[in-house]
């Protein structure tokens, strides 16, 4: 990740760190100032580049009218439900495939062919089957987000140390205990990596599905704004979606840290 470079510098003094910290915030501020200046300079029409202040104003009025809240919560709800379904079923299918020869035989070609496909192309088919409401939006999210979870679970389980499994077997663990108490926790870091891939995909697809089907939601609001040539609305939408995406990914990183602290602590007696 990009911030590693800053950490790379010998942290000689906190003043040094603080200075680099300011420089980092500075570049984002510079970008925002440049946006505002460019918009005000008249180089571009307000349609092509509305000023930052007018966009912020727009977000503020949306927030006051309650529309921002409705749209944001609907988008987050769809993305999260799709993500959670993908997480649960992706891990289950991955576990099944690694336990059961027939499940592996059946799902392996589907996963290896389906994973690299642009599954968003199936969106019109899903609409045809399920209509334009939440069910089809969540379905297309699951179709897209489940593959990285299955793939990560498979690789993770394959990579669990043999010694762990042997010791558990030796101590009389049943197959089920072995899977859910030893293998899945030990595979957790890589499974979480798969989930970290699936989460942004859920957001991308949620936004596309909303754009295509219209209605409430951040994507829907953006596409409505662009139909009415309301470019302030479009830019407000992108800022809102950017913030939601950023918060979700940060939350996932924090969650990962939490879960893995637990994981390492839980395993300390066995690995030590």
């Amino acid at each position, binding site marked *: 990740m990009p911030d590693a470079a800053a950490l790379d510098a010998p942290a000689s003094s906190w003043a040094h760190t603080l200075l680099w910290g300011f420089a980092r915030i500075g570049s984002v501020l510079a970008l925002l100032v440049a946006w505002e200046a460019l918009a005000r300079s008249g180089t571009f029409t307000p349609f092509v580049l509305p000023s930052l202040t007018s966009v912020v104003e727009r977000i503020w009025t949306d927030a006051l009218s309650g529309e921002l809240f409705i749209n944001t919560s609907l988008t987050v709800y769809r993305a999260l439900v799709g993500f959670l379904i993908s997480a649960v079923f992706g891990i289950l299918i991955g576990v099944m495939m690694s336990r059961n020869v027939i499940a592996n035989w059946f799902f392996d070609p589907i996963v290896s062919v389906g994973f690299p496909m642009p599954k968003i*192309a199936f969106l019109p088919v899903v609409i045809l089957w399920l209509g334009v409401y939440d069910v089809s939006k969540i379905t297309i999210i699951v179709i897209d987000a489940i593959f990285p979870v299955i793939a990560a679970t498979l690789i993770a389980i394959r990579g669990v140390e043999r010694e762990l499994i042997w010791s558990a077997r030796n101590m009389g663990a049943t197959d089920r205990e072995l899977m859910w108490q030893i293998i899945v926790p030990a595979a957790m870091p890589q499974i979480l990596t798969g989930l970290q891939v699936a989460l942004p995909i859920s957001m991308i697809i949620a936004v596309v599905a909303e754009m295509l089907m219209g209605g409430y939601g951040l994507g829907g609001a953006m596409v409505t704004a662009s139909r009415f040539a309301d470019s302030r609305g479009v830019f407000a939408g992108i800022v809102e979606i*950017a913030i939601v995406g*950023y918060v979700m990914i940060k939350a996932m990183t924090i969650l990962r840290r939490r879960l893995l602290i637990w994981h390492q602590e839980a395993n300390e007696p066995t690995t030590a």
Partner: protein
Amino acid sequence: MRSMALRYLPLLLLAIAWEVVARLGLVSSSALPPLSDVVVSWIDLMRTGELVTNGGASLYRAGAGLALAIVGGAVLGIGMAWSKPINVALGPIVEIFYPLPKSALIPVTVIWLGLGDGSKILLIFLGCMLPVTIGAFNGARSSEQTLVWSARSMGAGRLRMLWDVVLPSAMPELLNGIRTALALSFILLVSSELIVARGGFGYLIGFLGANGAYDAMYAVVLTVAFLGFAADRGYQMLMNRMLQWREQEQ
């Protein structure tokens, strides 16, 4: 050969199940036209040239956008790893835009460049650049210090080192980043064409669907899915080729 057939048997079974379910009328034929009808309309679409012209337009957009993204992303990523001022100036901006759900850019690029090729190329360029940047950055940063030191002690200049040491060691992660970008380019291409476009795969899918030509719509959907799959497989083969020197070393 036989093991191949056995391996992909489930896909064949699914195809047969599709045909049987549709032929028996278990689901309405507009929701799921029989696979054989889909194949027939695919041949029709190829013969009229509709699939080829629209496909050509799509592939041109994806190719141009991706090429720009690879060049821009690699330069930016290696630059950020190479020089601290560049990293400080651009790192935070990359970090902020990286988690942006890229599909949100679709209406913005339409406002900037309209409904034609330009807006799709810009969308794919902007959307695919950051995964390449991150890959190049991580790869270039991980170039072994001993290699850098020995090159320096042998009198390599900064530029020479960039080319001979940093770029090759950045290659594996850079290529991985490009793979992510490749997948993303298909997603962005199809979704932007589905939402607003004149021409292209996504446009064709939407057009056929709106006219109730569902067997043809399925034919295009499957074509796009197959192309995405084939592109990834082809790229993977290319990647293994390019990294052969590394495998042999180990």
